[in-house]
């Protein structure tokens, strides 16, 4: 049988990988993908825990996780699309319009 700690380690691995993707990749879309990977890591922990205590709450949590990610991603993708259309780029390093203007000039 699969010990709980094994599936949890896999979930942790996925989580960290997602974080790494977010930190390393410079594209908006990749950051969203990294986010998805992290969410899936969490989903795996929920399922494994649900299985370990043998009650459906784990799966209920995962369903709601999916609902939240779907809702969040729908809006995020459109924002990326708008950024791409108006600012002509999805490079994170270029999107710095909100930065604090140290020259003291009006933004």
């Amino acid at each position, binding site marked *: 049988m699969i010990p709980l700690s094994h599936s949890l380690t896999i979930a942790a691995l996925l989580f960290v990988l997602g974080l790494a993707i977010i*930190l390393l990749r410079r594209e908006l879309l990749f*950051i969203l993908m990294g986010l998805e990977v992290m969410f899936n890591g969490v989903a795996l922990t929920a399922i494994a825990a649900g299985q370990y205590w043998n009650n459906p709450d784990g799966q209920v949590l995962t369903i709601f996780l999916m609902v939240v990610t779907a809702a969040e991603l729908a809006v995020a993708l459109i924002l990326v699309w708008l950024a791409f259309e108006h600012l002509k780029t999805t490079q994170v390093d270029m999107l710095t319009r909100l*930065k*604090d203007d*140290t020259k003291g000039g009006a933004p």
Partner: protein
Amino acid sequence: MSQFLWLIPGSPMLGALIIALLGGYLKQRHFSILASCAAAVAFLTVLLAWLMGAATSQPLQQTLYTWIGVGNWMPTIGFTLDRLALVMVSVVSSIGLLIHIYSITFMAGDSDQRRYYFFLNLFLAGMLLLILADNLLLLYLGWELVGLCSFALIGFWYRDPLRASAGRKAFITTRIGDLSLALGIFLLFNEFNELSVSVLLANATVQWETGSQMPILAALLILGGAIGKSAQLPLQIWLPDAMAGPSPVSALIHAATMVTAGVYLIARTYPLFELAPQVQWSVAAIGTLTIIYGASAALAQNDIKRVLAYSTISQVGYMFLALGCGANALALLHLTTHAFFKALLFLTAGTMIRTNDNEHNIHNLGKRGNHSSLIRWCFLIGAASLAGFPIITAGFYSKEAILTATWSAPTGPLLWAFAAFGSLLTAVYIFRVYFFVFQGSRSGSPMPPIPAPMTWSLSILALASLVVGFVEFPEGWPGLHLWSDWLRDELGSASHPTLATAYSLQFIACVLPLIGIGVALVLVRREKLGFELPLAAFLRTGWNFDALYQIILIRPYFTLARFFKNVEALLIEGTLQKMTRSGMTVATACRDGLEYGVLNKSITGLLAGLRLGHMRLSATQNGLLSRYALMISAGAVFLLGYWLW
């Protein structure tokens, strides 16, 4: 019935809101109909109250909800309908309805009807709220609403700067009155921590003994508010200029409702005035003085509406006189009759002005000469009732009752003399206008027919100003004394002189108007020949109170302001020069020695440190998303590590 009470102020308020909010979708003609329906609903509810026996039953009470809950003080939106309120509400709503109907045609051509009817309805709602309010806070809300609407309606044609300034003038003078009323309310609240009228008055009569310092102060403050709103002597300058508004507005606001708000307030809080007899006498004194002022000023006016304005001031003076002599019921009676015949006069004047393309001057109106017979007759009835033509007009009964009541009040005969002279002058100035305007007119000339709503409202008002008086026959006469008995328990009864003097007073009261009419006839004929009243110019400008206030109020205010300005300028430069002249060396010494040496270095050092810190911190805001993510995860890692460690 008590659950419908909210409908009386509520329906005009609702009408106003609908006109304001949904007005965009309605066409011009819908506004007038909607506003009149709202006023009609209010009037019908009042009628329903009468039918359901509100006149005889206990005062109806309805509280909607607690307005502001502060600690244990919970002022509520509550309405009480006792007999005083019932009279006032029926007067206000009936005249309000008639004027709404009248203004359907009067304002037909106007392009800005939405604003007009919004404020008209809001005014009606405010007035009804003021009457029905069971606590002073709600009363004050109605008071302010009425003030606002009168300002908006006077300055309705705001494009003409003159009318706009008239609106502002009205608003400022009434504000002074409202201020003193507010202070009065604060004082009362401070004393009794309670604002509902009945409870307040009960505590006041118990705790305060008559003539002591507190009730006098409170009564004076409330009197100030009443004077401001009812345009009595010190604060009456705004009423003649308020004629800048449309005639139905002047009819509604400056004849029937707003000016009577002060009278209602004093009638409502009369136990307070009884606690301060000196203040009560001063009310009577102010009343008489205003009577003389109004009557004499009206004598010399050429503009028909200004005549009526000054006559309103003097008639309200009568009401204040009655209140001063403790005859509250009679004041209320005069208020009612006055509301009807003055509204009639204003509306007829309005129709005449409209048909003669806005001609206000009575001489030219007279020269033009063509007036329809209805207008002629209505004006005659109104004038007769105003002058107090004996037996047939309502004005006679109410004015005569006040005159007899003043006789037996403290310093009664003196007050009576002034009042009687005032009534003589009233007859003179109103019939002077009548003879000027209608003397040579060939009645029956081809006049454009007056539209139906106007004729209806005029005829009802004419009928009312004849019939209403029969409610209260003079002392000793066979007729019924319905009015005073009905209001006896609520407003107290007036003191009556002995029967003999009463008969003589009544005889004089009958004779005076007739003499007045005769004098008016002679005066008109002489004036047509070019004779001018002595000091007419002085009277025409209303004893040029405006110039008076200009001198005693406005000019000193500006001089004071200028004085402070140069004082301030003087002071600052002065000290600086003084300092520099004597302490120049000290200043330079500390500048380069202390300042450069220690102060500047430390400051610049601090500045440099700040700028450096700023640079470091702003790096965290350089907009790089991944930098933010890195910091977040670093924080998480650090926390986790710390927790694990």
